[in-house]
């Protein structure tokens, strides 16, 4: 390993160890530990699996089987900002699909995931809970309603730091 890799990794491990040790609830499990790490650094890097295994007295493979079971855990670094697009039935009826298409184009991706510049993570959401405002999108969990394909694409481009 190069020195730079090692340093970066040990910093990350230190951060993860702090998160693991700061869990306040009485029952600490592999799952609770993984949730704590993801809440803090937004994804589970390899270091998180290893540190959780050490912390819980388990093995990396046991931790991995828990982590990979739950689809809400992610293992790659997310973009700087999260953009949720609702594709629930209510939003769908008022044009969410068109919104989604334009966001895809703006982010240059074809499905959920990170834009190529790593600045935005797109997530499909089954309901953001504001059906009357549909189509709804959310930036870092802040909802914005009444979207059109154009307005959503503009927001997406702005998130990438591109002028609209």
């Amino acid at each position, binding site marked *: 390993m190069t020195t730079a890799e090692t340093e970066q990794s040990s910093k990350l491990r230190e951060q993860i160890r702090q998160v693991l040790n700061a869990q306040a609830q009485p029952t600490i499990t592999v799952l609770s530990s993984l949730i704590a790490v993801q809440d803090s650094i937004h994804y589970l890097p390899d270091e998180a699996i290893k540190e959780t295994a050490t912390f819980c007295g388990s093995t990396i*493979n046991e931790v991995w089987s828990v982590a990979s079971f739950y689809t809400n855990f992610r293992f790659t670094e997310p973009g700087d900002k999260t953009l949720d697009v609702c594709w629930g039935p209510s939003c769908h009826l008022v044009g969410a699909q068109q919104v989604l298409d334009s966001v895809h184009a703006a982010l240059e991706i074809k499905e959920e995931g990170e834009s190529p510049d790593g600045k935005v993570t797109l997530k499909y959401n089954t309901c953001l809970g504001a059906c009357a405002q549909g189509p709804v999108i959310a930036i870092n969990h802040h909802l914005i309603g009444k979207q059109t394909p154009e307005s959503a694409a503009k927001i997406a481009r702005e998130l990438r730091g591109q002028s609209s």
Partner: protein
Amino acid sequence: MADGTTFKIDGRDVVAKPGQTILQAAMDQDIYIPYLCYYPKMKPQGSCRACMVEVEANGRKMMVASCTTPPMPEAEVTTNSEEVEGLRRNVVELLMSEHPHGCLTCHRIELCGPQDICQRHVTVTDRCTICPKNERCELKDTVRAVELDLRTPLNYHRRDLPIHSDDPFYDRDYNLCIVCSRCVRVCDEVRFDTALTLTSRSGVALVGTSHGTSLLESGCEFCGACVDVCPTGSLTERNYKWEKAVSEVATVCTNCPVGCQMIAEVNKFGKVVRFKADLAGAANNGQACMTGKFGYEYTNDSSRLKRPYVREGGILRKATWDEALEKIKSGLGGRSSEELAVITSPRGSNEDQYVAAKFAKSVLKTANIDSALNADNALLSRLEARLGAGAATNPIWDLENSKSLLVVAGNPTEEQNVLAVPAKKAVREGAKLVVIDSRETELTRYATEWLRPKPGSEALLIAGISRVILDEALEDKEFVGSRLDQAEELKQSLWTFDLAKVSRDTGIEDAQIRRAARIFAESDAGAILLGDDGLTDKAAELVVDASIDLAAITGNLGKASGGIFPLYRGANTLGARDMGATPGENGRDIAEMMSGMTSGDVKAALVMADGVSGYSPTLSSLPAALENLDFLVVSAALDSEITHHANVVLPAATYAEQNSSLTNVERRVQLLRITAEPKHEEKTGWETVAAIANAMGGTGFDYATASDVFTEIAQEVSNYSGLNYERLQSGGIQWPVDSSILFSDEASKVTVVALNYDELANSAESGSLTFAPGRVLSQPERDVVVRKPADMNYVDREQFVQVHPDDAKSAGLNEGDVIQVKTDDGHILARGKAVFDSPQVGLVGATTLFGELATKMHELDVADWTPQMPGLGYSTVTLESAPVEQEAGAAAD
């Protein structure tokens, strides 16, 4: 019910043993119920549902999975009604959507060849004929047994995953996996490694590792248990991958003293193409290890020696046996007995050892005879002197029920791997483990208490534990009162072991000694696993004395799941001792032979070199020593650094080419069985020695078969009396006949000996730096990067060298410096960043991963690699700062 449950399967009366499920009871009766996720000796899982049966009990009918359901008394189980069969077919049909099955359900399955044009349009990559397990596929057998008939194949999507063939020894092709999870479970609940796991869930669940990493860092010990249980072609041994076997021979592994019973799969050319652990094996209970599972291949090597060679004009030339024997007769004959030496193979059978010993005594009249791995070692000799047997007092699988374990100066997970399997099982099930070892080994990671004393002070520490037990009155008073001889003397001597002094001289806190003592004394049954790694002969003897005393005062002798297990090397070291292949009076042992050769006192030798390597840790000076001989005869299967100095080389038969017997650590005499006759002029060890003896005019060497030799052994060796090949056929017998646990006779006495504090304390050397290398399966707390420069994975990680701050100070080193550990003769044993966490002054440690060793062994360019497995030997070293490495990565930083 204690004596089992009576019920009916398909109208037949069946008695299930207590704890058995319907499937297990049926299997005992040879009633076939299909199953895929169940595997003998593993916990039932009940996930594949292929074993569905109908049970009628208490007037109700239900469909149950027979692998997880215990039978109810008087129940009537139906395995073959139309309804059951229909259900079962349905279940297997669903499984088929996960596995290529165009061929599995085709009526031409037995006729089809790889080149045939398929009328069902089965894609070439999905055909059974190209699968490595085609001839031995459990899934295929099951599909055929349930008579699955798919007119049109089901919709099936090949997963299109890359095949993992970049880890040592075996391949993983998850395109063929049916996710029965046998491999995951065997790794977890039988081997306790958890190197594999189920990943993800529902339709995309699959077997894998954390982040899909290589097995090198996932904790794999390459035992091959997962390969043995896989019902499909997902997991396969890499060598002879597609080879079809025509017969199976039950034999014994000859790599370590556990003596695992193995099944050798033999192809039509008589080659051993696979080795798998025998589920019926008493010593191994269906388990094997890396060396056993994958180290069998040297017998097939094309470079095997085929005929005798004699050296003429410095060159070895082909010769006949007669010429060779003539040469040997003149070379060995006419010498004084002190000039001669006989070195037997650590793999050599009892017959080999017996005939060699007889030859040394009656023909050469020399006392210089020993096994290459030292049959006369201090550990076994002292055990024999004290307990009457230089062997384990209890059977190996007794360990699984032990409640506490004490492991001293040994690394069973690598050196006696399968012996560690029941030990790890006991720990998983709640037994407490105390490890006394300066090195970090796999077992230290499971240990409740890891005592890391100053090297050489192990015996003192054990005596300290005994002292605490007496102090706190934790001894087994009944056993001490009725069964011990000289108990009073021992007690008196232990009062001189002041715990503060012990703590000072061993470097272990007294609180930890107390905790260890309580663990061992307060459990019902405690076993002691005793190694001699890094111990001088004297220290090994003292460790044996202290351990026997400890086992005796805690009442752990003659008790099931207690006892003492010596951790020695060499598959038949015990057999060599039993047969008298040990130095006689004033005779030289292997170390003295080597020094005698170097000094010129020993001038001629016979070496049985199968399994002997100059690269094995204790034999590094052997090749150089042999060079000094006037005359050397080597019987070897392969050319090696040993044969290079020989005047006569004789071709030896391997384990696969002989019927003979071996004796393992638990005193079990087991049979090696022949897989194929030697192809050329190879002779077994005893045939070779008998031929030499006859040529030299010896009498009493006219044996026709190994069985004849064994008959003589049974007459001459008292522990073997009453044994013969007939009786050994079914899994071997422990000597003395019918005593699996020594001292189990209530009337027998155990003699304990008084311990002398100064003697024990003196065996610890001080002043020099000792390097204690460690090796573990995984270390999640440290970063590992697996790189793949070419075809294979390699572990790449930063090394740490553990040093004590005081030692670093005197060497002028700072924490974080890159340092190297150097022996007196300039070998660099470790290189890495200095960390100041060595617990003892004078102790230097560095831990590597087993995966690194596995890669190294896999890539070793010799046919017989198992003798070259480096152990974790101690060395006296110096520390220095390492020169700056010219590395691209380092320069960039």
